[in-house]
């Protein structure tokens, strides 16, 4: 059969487009995650009020809201396949690694979209000084990537269990703690005009390690 390009990237791209198309037709995951993030944001804002100059707390709260929004929906990518029973179809058209990375890119886009909606609202509701944009955005991007890469793999694992979405949060949290530590610390640092270098190094190293392990591990995920 005539082929074009690297088959891996072709498959990943096709899967990514398919993910967006199916998501857009129903918008289930999108709605769930945005609703969750906004609800959490409202609750936090209501409970805490305007933080003003408490820049030490703002980073932590922001990332809690983002974490909850992500946990509410990042497992969706695989759970949907399992519940729709389309996993066999997917496995027949692409390699496990391509499936994993296609879903990863989709989840990444998802997280970035979530951040795009949530962050401005957070900044407005909480008050306080504007962030130092370059490091702030860098942390959002890197943190989002770390969140997405770990969550996609864990989502693939958990989608095959009986606990599914309920188990997803508990099982992915321990793995995400280093990410949270770095993003919270880094966000605080950028508001206090410190260096975020070690946080960025942690996030970059962490993401590289998870992606590297993923390349090897996706092949073992499905065997039935």
């Amino acid at each position, binding site marked *: *059969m*005539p*082929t*074009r*390009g690297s*088959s891996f990237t*072709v*498959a990943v791209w*096709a*899967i990514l*487009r*398919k993910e967006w*198309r*199916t998501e857009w*037709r*129903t918008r289930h995951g999108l709605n769930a995650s945005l609703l969750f993030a906004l609800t959490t944001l409202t609750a936090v804002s209501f409970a805490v009020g305007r933080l003003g100059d408490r820049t030490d707390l703002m980073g932590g709260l922001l990332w809690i809201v983002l974490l909850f929004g992500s946990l509410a929906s990042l497992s969706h990518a695989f759970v949907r396949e399992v519940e*729709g*029973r*389309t996993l*066999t*179809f997917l*496995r*027949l*058209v*692409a*390699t496990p690694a*391509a499936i994993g990375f296609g879903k990863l890119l989709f989840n990444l886009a998802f997280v970035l979209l979530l951040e795009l909606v949530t962050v401005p609202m957070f900044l407005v509701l909480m008050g306080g000084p504007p962030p130092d944009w370059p490091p702030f955005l860098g942390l959002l991007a890197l943190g989002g990537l770390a969140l997405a890469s770990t969550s996609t793999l864990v989502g693939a694992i958990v989608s095959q269990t009986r606990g599914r979405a309920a188990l997803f949060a508990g099982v992915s949290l321990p793995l995400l703690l280093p990410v949270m530590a770095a993003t919270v610390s880094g966000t605080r640092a950028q508001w206090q005009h410190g260096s975020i270098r070690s946080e960025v190094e942690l996030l970059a190293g962490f993401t590289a390690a998870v992606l590297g392990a993923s390349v090897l591990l996706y*092949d*073992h995920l*499905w*065997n*039935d």
Partner: protein
Amino acid sequence: MSSGEAAPGPAASRGAAPGRVHAAAAGAVAEPVGVPPRTGPDRTVAAGAPAFRIRASSLAHRYAPGRGLEAIDFAIASPGLIAVTGPNGSGKSTLLRIVAGLLEPSAGRCEVEIDGALLPPAARRARCGFAAPELAFYDELTVGENLEFAAEASGAVDAVARVDAALDRVGLPGRRRDRVAALSSGMKQRLRLAFAILHAPPLLLLDEPESHLDTDGREVLTQLLATQRASGLVLLATNDEREWRRADQRIELHGRGLGDPA
């Protein structure tokens, strides 16, 4: 991952007899690669057909204590139609999934060689077409979108043309823009067949393909099987006697069916 040589397989350790292969009609059990396919009384074989060699040695799969595909040996060495039969729960679907590379057996090995190239499980999906009752498509997408996705993800450059051709062969050309959720079970079955033949694979693995099909659908299936068996190989798992009567060779699986007493 490579499947290791069979240790005393689950069947042996339970003291049950391993499954036996029954060869019906004119099929021989083992032939060396490279021997040109024979023409039997029921069929003629097209020139230029690929050489096949599928061999299972002590192949078994355990999916729960006491349940699974019991150890089986068989060899297939020419194009044609091979039926896989056996009671419910004997492992017909499991066997097909192992050949397709979707499932790694827990014991024994299954080698698939097409045109002299030994295909590890990961490489098999490109060269075989698979259709089974549990194969489902994306309900939110249309028939065309599902098949085009399959073609593109597999690397085809002429996805649209391939999809058109496949839909024509199964008699669903007018359904291209219908969402899968709107299809009847018979049409979904035809969609599965279209998916299986999408990249013109030399090896077709069909699990109960006749289910849900109406008369026209069965005609489509008969045509498909006739074309495929002439120049390629079909492994057909079925409970339907009408289907396996036409086979060149039959692999019969024994084993405790789900309804059998323990």
